[in-house]
């Protein structure tokens, strides 16, 4: 198997998979060269300090095993974080979190980050 145990765990039992019906923001990115499409739904609320945090996050992905695992791992990493913190999640962190990805699959993790960034940026635009 070309994938790490962690990737396979996420692929078998993805976390936060599904959609949020009245989401506060949605980000969607697709990659034509690979045919992957990732969609991230966010529900935003405030913590005690008054910072905006990701209260709930869900994903929908059409893509390879790596794309699905990246989506799952990303949502786990982002959940509960402030929007500022979530914007700081990098593709390297996801790859590390997953115990590595085959080099040709690393672009999948970029897509996940892009979808999350897009959702947060959209939220920031409509609320500030």
């Amino acid at each position: 198997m070309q994938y790490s145990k962690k990737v396979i765990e996420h692929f078998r039992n993805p976390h936060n998979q599904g959609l949020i019906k009245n989401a506060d923001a949605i980000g969607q990115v697709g990659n034509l060269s690979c045919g992957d499409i990732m969609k991230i739904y966010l529900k935003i609320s405030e913590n005690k300090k008054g910072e905006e945090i990701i209260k709930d996050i869900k994903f929908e992905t059409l893509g390879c095993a790596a794309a699905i695992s990246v989506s799952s791992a990303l949502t786990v990493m982002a959940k509960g974080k402030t929007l500022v913190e979530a914007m700081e999640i990098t593709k390297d962190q996801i790859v590390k979190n997953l115990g590595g990805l085959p080099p040709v699959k690393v672009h999948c993790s970029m897509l996940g980050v892009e979808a999350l960034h897009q959702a947060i940026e959209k939220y920031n635009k409509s609320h500030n």
Partner: protein
Amino acid sequence: MYKNKTIYLDHSATTPVDKAVLKAMLPYFSRIYGNPSSIHNFGQTASIAVSRARKNIAEFLNCEAKEIIFTSGATEADNLAVFGVVNALSKSNQGKKLHVITSAIEHPAVLEPFRKLEEEGIEVTYLPVGKNGAVNLETFKKALKNNTVFVSIMYVNSEVGSIQPIREIGEIIKKINQDRAGENNKNKIYFHTDAVQALNFLNCGVKYLGVDLLSLSGHKIYGPKGVGVLAVKAGTPISGVQLGGHHENNLRSGTLNVPGIAGLGEAIKICGKNKEKNNRNILKLRNEFVARARRLIPEIIINTDIKNSTPSHANISFVGAEGEAILIALDLEGIAVSTGSACASASLKASPVLKAMGVKDEIAHSTIRFTFGRNNTKAEIGAVLKILPPLIKKLRRMAPKL
């Protein structure tokens, strides 16, 4: 997993070595280890095995033993056929522009040598295929020119299993060669076919097909990897590509792979003996699999033209799920298949074969190739059809609605 066993449905990639084949190979590793080129007894004993294999292969292909050139596999045989013949023809036609024909769905072992010839100034026509994955005879006839000297078309496509009209093309070429001889046009057209995927199922007699050259490989017919053959009809102009010895009539230098050759000789003998029975069984399994998959899984597209394919192939698109994800999910259940999806290829490009057949990218991405073999059983098909429908449903549910 089905009864804790793995299920192998990727026979187009490779096949398990038959026990009788392995037995035929074993003496030639450390007991009968001579170099068949050596004239002492050690060498000559090994050379007997090579001669026996050569005879078996010649019988299967209905040609002469001296027309069999052993190679390291079909990739080398294809390279030798394309470069060997076209280089020899270029030499004898210096200054003349030559034209050659192949198809858009060839194995890269043929396509890439043709691209190289193109770079070197040879004119190349890449024949398109229809939705059925087969070359059209009218299109082929139209592509022919007065300076066409070489044609290479595969017998069976490895991804969808489509059978190409090799015998019909052979007849057209024969007729043209006769006409040319009458018109004092010295150029003959030489015809090569890569028959790797056909050997198990179809008549591969070179005279039946009307081909001058034919490539085959050991590991697709329950034989060993690392051994193949290029059959070259006597009188065909061809020059060696790999130089440095005088093996195989100077056409393929390199010490012969005696155990591999002995195995290939045995594999091809078994292949010829059980062809019809295996064909019937595999066809039954494949057709049942496709019919039941259609009933159990909505929105699937069968890319294999069932009426014009080898019985082994079922190439199916599961629209709305991604092929590599399906492959990995099946692998986790112990089921081995392959995919035409870009996400599984190093190039991240969807299958050029499906593309040539007019299959859209997003559908090609959802493609799985199941290839059945002689050891598969009805129970295995049942097990796969239990696992596959919920697995596709799960992946489709994960995808965003577009």
